[in-house]
């Protein structure tokens, strides 16, 4: 009893285990493709064979008919020459011979005179012309019926002549074709299954490999890359693209890591200062006035930190293009003149002359606040670092001019300038060159200006003003695209706007 129960459970679990695997197989693309191909090819094979069979049958039937026709012609000729007697003689002779030919001559009442047919469906002889019938041969048992195409011919005086041919050949052909169809379908299924299994195994193996790699990357192996088989097929291309994406993500992550490190490092200094001040005030302050002064200092320090965070947040938002719906046509003269006027007293205080020159009628589509902020940062930098050392003119020139499809906003000073090697570096966050360490600031001004330029589809470039620094922010005149891919190619390509719109950001 237990054995039976065990046997049952064993039998019951085994197929269900296999069945559990089946849905997985059925879901694979390879399986679906194979199934579709199988159905299509099997249908095609059946159609081709059916067409061949149909044509062959028609051909055979035609041949049979023309044979019958020829024979009837000949027999009718004989009957005309020698009368019914001669016809009967000929038929009797022919009926004795082997072959597929069938003959019958009857009286007007349907009684057999000569021929090799024993039984006919009733009424056959009353229908002159061609028909396909079942019949029995004289030499065979009555219950063995055969198929034949026959033709009935009315002889003079009511006698009837039937000539026909057995269609056994045709039946044989049908059997042959049926068998061929069965075999070819079987072959298509077997070969298709095999090919499908082969393709699926090959493709699935590579995809499984990709999945394994992806899982290991997700699990933390950030250096892992997908294998490329070198065949140049679509899987290779997919793997190549995914690898490029992983590289880009890696770059972004290490960039982010660097920024985070910089933020932590650069904010530690003011925070330490803040803490030291508070501590010192607690320790040494004698009067409420001294405490108040220390608190004021602490608030100033905290305000500075807040400004740094605001600038960092702004850069981050510009880089991820979270500014939307805020682009409008701008009058550049208004911006350049306004900012020059805003900074002019500061320049005077620093012993510099600030001059502004704008080509008339310049305008572009952009965000006034952002472009203003960027230009203000550039002017602010020029005022901080643009004091000439030798006998170079103590001027800072703010210019705006159109070059092709770009508008170039330039701020040029005659200060110490920036060595060529450092020029691309200073656009990064928190990068401050050694000679600027003594001045106030956090090294975010140029980074912010650069982010603004990028958002507008432009770029910032630093050039030698011999002596001094010429910072040029070039911005496209046309509405800037913001829907550029997040993974844009670095360097250069940023100045080429694509056709995508801005609103979708």
């Amino acid at each position: 009893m237990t054995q039976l129960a065990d046997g049952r459970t064993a039998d019951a679990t085994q197929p269900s285990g296999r069945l559990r695997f089946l849905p997985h197989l059925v879901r694979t693309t390879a399986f679906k493709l194979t199934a579709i191909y199988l159905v299509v090819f099997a249908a095609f094979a059946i159609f081709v064979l059916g067409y061949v069979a149909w044509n062959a049958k028609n051909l055979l039937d035609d041949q049979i008919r023309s044979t019958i026709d020829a024979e009837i012609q000949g027999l009718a000729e004989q009957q005309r020459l020698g009368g019914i007697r001669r016809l009967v003689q000929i038929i009797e002779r022919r009926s004795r011979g082997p072959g597929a030919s069938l003959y019958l001559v009857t009286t007007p009442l349907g009684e057999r005179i000569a021929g090799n047919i024993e039984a006919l469906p009733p009424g056959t002889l009353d229908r002159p012309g061609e028909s396909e019938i079942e019949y029995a041969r004289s030499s065979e048992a009555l219950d063995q019926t055969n198929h034949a195409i026959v033709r009935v011919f009315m002889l003079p005086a009511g006698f009837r002549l039937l000539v026909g041919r057995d269609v056994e050949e045709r039946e044989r052909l049908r059997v042959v074709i049926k068998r061929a169809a069965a075999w070819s379908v079987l072959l298509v299924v077997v070969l298709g299954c095999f090919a499908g299994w082969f393709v699926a195994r090959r493709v699935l193996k590579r995809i499984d490999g990709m999945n394994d790699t992806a899982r290991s990357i997700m699990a933390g192996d950030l250096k892992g890359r997908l294998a490329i088989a070198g065949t140049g097929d679509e899987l290779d291309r997919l793997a190549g693209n995914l690898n490029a994406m992983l590289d880009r993500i890696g770059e972004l992550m290490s960039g982010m890591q660097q920024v985070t490190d910089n933020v932590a490092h650069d904010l530690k200094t003011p925070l330490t200062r803040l803490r030291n001040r508070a501590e010192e005030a607690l320790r040494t302050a004698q009067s409420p006035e001294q405490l108040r002064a220390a608190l004021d200092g602490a608030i100033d320090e905290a305000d500075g930190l807040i400004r740094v965070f605001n600038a960092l947040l702004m850069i981050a938002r510009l880089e991820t293009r979270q500014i939307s719906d805020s682009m409008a046509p701008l009058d550049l003269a208004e911006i350049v003149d306004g900012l020059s006027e805003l900074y002019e007293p500061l320049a005077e205080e620093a012993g510099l002359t600030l001059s502004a020159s704008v080509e008339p009628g310049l305008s572009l589509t952009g965000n006034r606040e952002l472009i203003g902020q960027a230009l203000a940062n550039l002017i602010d930098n020029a005022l901080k670092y643009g004091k000439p050392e030798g006998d170079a003119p103590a001027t800072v020139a703010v210019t705006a001019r159109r070059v092709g499809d770009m508008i170039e906003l330039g701020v040029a000073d005659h200060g110490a300038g920036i060595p060529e090697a450092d020029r691309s570096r200073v656009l990064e966050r928190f990068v401050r060159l050694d000679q600027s360490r003594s001045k106030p600031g956090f090294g975010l001004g140029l980074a912010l200006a650069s982010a603004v330029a990028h958002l507008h589809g432009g770029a910032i470039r630093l050039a030698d003003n011999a002596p001094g620094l010429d910072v040029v922010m070039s911005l496209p005149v046309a509405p800037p695209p913001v829907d550029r891919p997040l993974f844009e190619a670095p360097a250069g390509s940023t100045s080429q706007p694509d056709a995508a719109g801005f609103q979708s950001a």
Partner: protein
Amino acid sequence: MRLLIVEDDAEAAAYLVKAFREAGHVADHAPDGLEGYAMAQGGGYDVLVVDRMLPRMDGLSVIRSLREQGETVPALILSALAQVDDRVKGLRAGGDDYLPKPYAFSELLARVEVLSRRRSAPTSEPTSYRVGDLLLDRLAHRVTRAGEEIVLQPREFRLLEYLMKHAGQVVTRTMLLENVWDYHFDPQTNVIDVHVSRLRSKVDKGFEHPMIHTIRGAGYMVRDTAR
């Protein structure tokens, strides 16, 4: 001045209520948008200080709904979203001013006081401002002090005009940058201070009582100290 502070952060709200009371104002607190909306309706407040992100009904919706009902009480929006287009959205919803977090209380106080004054002031601006012996004629673009003409650059004129319009009130550096230069960004340096000191050298130099006062930790104020 009666204020309504709509702010969900209890600690921040308590600090604001206390600070406004110390500054001599009456401040009520609503902990969420819906309550703030209900209290603001016919509450007779002079200014609303509305946090942008609030439970139950966000700050912009509160202001928009009040405006749709014809409620004109000035509203200042506080927001942790300190970016360019957020300000635009805030003002578009019917807010009168926008202050990103974190902010200095002195900045908030100065802005709220200006807003409340705007409510009580006549709608049409006067053609001239007078503070003590300082007179600014907006139509003739002339400034005189004790009858003597002071020659100002256009921007200096606008600076003085804004300061005199809010005479007796603290005006912060950011408010000056916003209202005189129409920029809302952080100028990084003491650029406004330099402009004010220039203006001061023209307006106050040679006079016994200064008109333009620096309010430590807050900003500037035009006030007649002669009396």
